């Protein structure tokens, strides 16, 4: 094959998370007509809340991609193939070759592919004669280039890709219900891959943020990015749960909480540019504490909605 470009593919970076890429690909491929907030909720990505204790900027992408991105697709009834590793690994060239081949095959079938280029991006085309892949990073509509030989070599030491293979029909109501349980799991559980000394997840993430803000021991530029990213996720989740309450009025309390949560995060982001840092920090802390309590209430509401299934999953509620 010579050159192929999926020119209609688009990507918009908002939460700067995996779902930005996933939505772009699935919407273009006709595998979803849903808006990104719905996908964010259904895939559970929007409910993830992990922070580096120093509020490093990459907090929103520090998680187990292989496990979680597989699930994100699986929750939607989409089968996928993916690989990840360190680019300095001796076996990297073998995986690099395979990755490029798999991505090209996906593009040939009209589907973009997700890969990591210091952020999740969409592979939208390739040119065998020039040995180049074309990708979108969501910042604009320009296709960027990565030579095959440079695929997977990033500022960060990781490489990763995911292609979507097939799609099955799922009862969307079942998917919505499952996402509620998974959201609770995310709230309560620390990601076993992350050292607790450096990272906090779910409810504990709020505690970690408050601690960082109080002690002043954190990366200021990073914190702004973290709040920006998660403000977009919380916005997505708000729209998602709002849709769910239309089906299940029992979720109206949760929907109200997520609406408030989204507003709080918008406020947090809003005071980012405040000139007086200590004043903004105090305000940040107040808003974050409020957000923590609000999200706690939302989760409790979802817990009572899904009580029966949660109880019957005993001590591992995330396992379907």
């Amino acid at each position: 094959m010579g050159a192929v470009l999926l020119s209609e593919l688009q990507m918009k970076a908002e939460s700067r998370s995996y779902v930005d890429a996933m939505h772009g690909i699935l919407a273009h491929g006709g595998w979803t007509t849903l808006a990104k907030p719905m996908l964010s909720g259904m895939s559970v990505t929007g409910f993830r809340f992990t922070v580096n204790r120093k509020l490093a900027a990459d907090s929103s992408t520090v998680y187990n991609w292989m496990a979680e991105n597989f699930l994100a697709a699986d929750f939607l009834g989409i089968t996928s193939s993916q690989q990840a590793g360190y680019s300095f690994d001796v076996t990297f060239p073998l995986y690099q070759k395979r990755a490029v081949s798999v991505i090209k095959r996906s593009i040939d079938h009209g589907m973009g592919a997700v890969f990591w280029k210091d952020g999740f991006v969409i592979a939208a085309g390739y040119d065998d004669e020039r040995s180049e892949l074309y990708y979108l990073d969501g910042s604009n509509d320009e296709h960027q280039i990565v030579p095959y030989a440079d695929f997977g070599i990033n500022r960060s030491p990781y490489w990763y890709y995911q292609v979507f293979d097939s799609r099955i029909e799922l009862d969307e109501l079942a998917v919505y219900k499952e996402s509620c349980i998974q959201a609770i799991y995310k709230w309560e559980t620390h990601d076993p891959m992350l050292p607790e000394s450096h990272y906090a997840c779910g409810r504990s993430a709020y505690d970690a943020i408050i601690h960082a803000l109080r002690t002043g021991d954190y990366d200021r530029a990073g914190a702004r990015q973290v709040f920006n990213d998660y403000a977009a996720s919380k916005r997505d989740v708000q729209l998602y749960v709002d849709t769910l309450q239309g089906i299940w009025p029992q979720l109206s309390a949760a929907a109200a909480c997520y609406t408030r949560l989204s507003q709080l995060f918008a406020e947090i982001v809003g005071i980012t540019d405040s000139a007086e840092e200590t004043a903004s920090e105090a305000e940040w802390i107040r808003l974050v504490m409020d957000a923590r309590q609000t999200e706690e209430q939302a989760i409790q509401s979802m817990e009572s909605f899904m009580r029966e299934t949660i109880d019957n999953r005993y001590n591992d509620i995330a396992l379907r």
Partner: protein
Amino acid sequence: MSSACLEHIRLIRESKSYTDSLYAVLTAAHIFNGPKYMLSGLSGMAFKFTVHEKLLPMSVTAYGQWGDEHWQAVNNLGVYTEWDGGRTRHPTFRYYQQDAVQAVKDSLDRGIGVIYWLPEFGVIYGYDDEDEVFYVQDGSSREGQIVLYHNFGLNSTPFWYCQVFGEHVHVARETMILESLRLAILDWETPYKTLPHTDIASGRMAYAFLRQGLEKGGFDEDGAVYILDNYLCARTEIRDYLQAVSGTWPELGQAFNLYDHLVCTVSGIKGCIKETAGLRRVDRRQVHELIAMLTAAESLEEQAISLFRAIAGKYPDLKRSTVPRWGTHSPR
């Protein structure tokens, strides 16, 4: 309609079933040369030791999430690998199954066997499109099992797993050995490798579970014997492995001595397992003796791990100085 049969693959059950299967596949494909204990050591499989608090037989294979554990094991050998698996009850299973069936056939066409969870782990060594079956060795007999394409992945457990292999690159021996020591340290120091389950312990903690399980009584009889048999086999593998690589670092020679002593110390365990009416059972009257041997062994092993740490500490560990984006996760 096609078929393939890799007659030269021979699965012999001695070690962990995954190690036995990996050895069968890689040696038949000329990707690995050497004795099984070398593969077991270099891949880190020998060092995996997990025990359920009730000494259930599943302990021996419950050393973590297989995808992650096996990928690290095989990657250290410089071999490309892909794995597939999950819960058979999940809605997407049939699609993954169909893909896996094709991937297995492709691998067999390329002349490389495939590891498959029967349960235990076995090796798929052939297929036949006309009969729509795979031929699988389980190590128990020369005949092997037959699995219909339609039933691929369906077994007595709720999960399925298969793994294919590809090209390989040369990895410097020292690099492989060093990483195997790191894997050993990780397994020793991580108390729970199948979170959120905390009824299965690993490494140092597994010793505690084994002792407590034996002491309390009420343990699974088959499981206890299986765990002890496997434990003894693994310790012998580690000893032989360390002997083979002892020239690489002086500390490894010392570690070999410790494991050599350990193997002697625990050699009495076999005598604590008695056979009655065709069934092997732990002799309850000798439980205290067993526990004493295990306690001594644990202390020796702890010293050996310290030696591994001393070696590992001399070199930067790129793989663990940054948090990866794959690895430990809860069952899904």
